[in-house]
C-alpha cells in the first residue's frame, strides 16, 4: 500500500517510531559442513529482532554476493570452521565491492586463528567473532555498525 507514514501495528494510529529491522544474510562459504554455529546465530539474531536470510551450506563466494545483492542486506555474516577462510572471505568482499555494495557490513565467525585476523581485516572483513561469543554481543555490534542503524 502507498504509505505516507508507517504506522505502529500494535498501536494503530500512532506512527511507528521503531526502526525497520536490519536485514542480515548468514552464509557458509566453501565445503564446510559445520552449520551448528550458523543456525544458532540465525535463530539468536531473529530473537534479537533482525530479519535473517539463511542460505545454508556449501556456497561459492559468487552465490553469496549475488544473494546479498538481490536481498539488499545490511550485513553479510560468513560462518567458517573449515580452515579455508583466507581463500574464501576476501573473495566475497571483492565481489560485493565490484557490485557497488561497499556500504555493506561484512563480518565473520567460526574457527579462525589469531594469526589470520589482521590480514582478513585488511581485506575488508570488519570483525571476526570466535567460539563462545554471545549473540547479544554480535547483535550489539551489528546494530552499531550496520549501514541502516537499528
Amino acid at each position: 500500500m502507498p504509505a505516507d507514514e508507517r504506522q505502529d501495528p500494535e498501536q494503530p494510529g500512532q506512527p511507528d517510531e521503531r526502526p525497520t529491522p536490519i536485514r542480515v544474510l548468514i552464509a557458509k562459504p566453501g565445503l564446510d559442513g559445520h552449520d551448528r554455529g550458523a543456525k544458532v546465530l540465525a535463530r539468536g539474531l531473529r530473537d534479537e529482532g533482525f530479519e535473517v536470510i539463511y542460505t545454508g551450506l556449501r556456497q561459492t563466494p559468487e552465490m553469496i554476493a549475488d544473494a546479498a545483492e538481490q536481498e539488499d542486506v545490511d550485513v553479510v555474516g560468513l560462518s567458517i570452521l573449515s580452515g579455508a577462510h583466507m581463500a574464501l572471505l576476501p573473495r566475497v568482499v571483492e565481489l560485493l565491492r565490484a557490485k557497488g555494495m561497499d556500504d555493506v557490513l561484512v563480518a565473520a565467525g567460526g574457527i579462525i586463528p589469531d594469526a589470520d585476523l589482521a590480514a582478513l581485516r585488511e581485506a575488508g572483513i570488519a570483525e571476526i567473532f570466535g567460539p563462545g561469543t554471545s549473540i547479544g554481543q554480535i547483535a550489539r555490534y551489528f546494530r552499531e555498525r550496520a549501514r541502516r542503524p537499528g
Partner: protein
Amino acid sequence: MSDPGSLLEAARTGDRRALGRLLTIIENQDPTLRPILPRLFAAGRGAHLIGITGPPGSGKSTLVSALTRALRDRGRRVGIIAVDPSSPYTRGAIMGDRIRMMEHSADRDVFMRSMASRGELGGLAATTWQAVAALDAAAYDPILIETVGAGQSEVEIAGLAETTVVVEAPEMGDEVQAIKAGLLEVADIVAVNKGDRPAAQQSARYLRAMLSTAGGRVGRTPAPVILTTATTGEGIDRLIEAIERHTREARSPEQSRARAVNQLRRALAELAQRRAVAHGAWLTSVEAVAERRLDPITAAERLLGS
C-alpha cells in the same frame, strides 16, 4: 542514485542492484515511493503471477526451485518472492527459503527476494503486491510467489496471483488431516508433492475425488491434481503444462475483474484507515468507542466524513 524513480529506471534496464534497493524502499513503505507508484504499475509488462502456497514443509521452496529450473530451460526469466513469518514479539524473522533455491543464485535471469510478513496475517507481506510490480517492471516473467506456510485462512495469495498452486504433501497414515478446506478452495491447481512417498498416490486420488465434487467454484473447471517430486523434478513438466493451460482462464475478463476488485478493496481499506487516523477527531473517537459512548460503525462514518 538512490531515489526510487532512478532506481526504477535502472531496474528496468537490468540493473539488479537497483532492483534490490527499490525492493527495500517498497518493503519499508518509504514515503519517497508514493510519487512513483503510478509509474511502477504502468511499467509492468503483464508477467504471469503464480502463487505457491500450502502447509509448512510441504515442499513449496523446493518446488519453486524445480519450476525455476524447468522455466529457465524454456528460456524464461524468473522472478521469485518468498514470504516468511515475522515474530510478533521481536519483529525478527528467519527466512530459509533460499536454502532450496541457491542453485539459481548466480543466474542473472533469476531474481529471488525474501520478504518477512511484518505483521500481516494473510500469508503475504502488506507490500508483496508492489514488490511483484517491481519484478514485473524489470521484465521477469513468470513471477513465483511463495507464501508463508499456510493453514485455513492464509489465502491472500488468491487475490494477487493469477494462478494459485496449493502444494500438499502426503501425510503418513491419515491423509485427511493434511487437507485444509479453506486452502483447497483457492486452488487453481493442486500439487501433491513428495510423490516418492508411499502415501502419495492415495492422497492424489482422494484429493481428485474431493475436488470433483467441491463447491464454491461455480463456472470454473475443477482444479487438476498433479503428483510431483520436487527433489527429483518428476511431474514438474506436467505441472507447468497445467499452469500454462490455466493462463487463459486466469486472464478471462471475469477473473481479471475479480482480481481488480480485490486490489481496489485492499487499497481502499488502507486509504480509509490512513485518512481516519490522520483526522483530528481520531483520538476522541477512539476514547468514545472505548467508553461505549459511540458505536464503531458511526465513529468510522464520522471520521470518513459521511
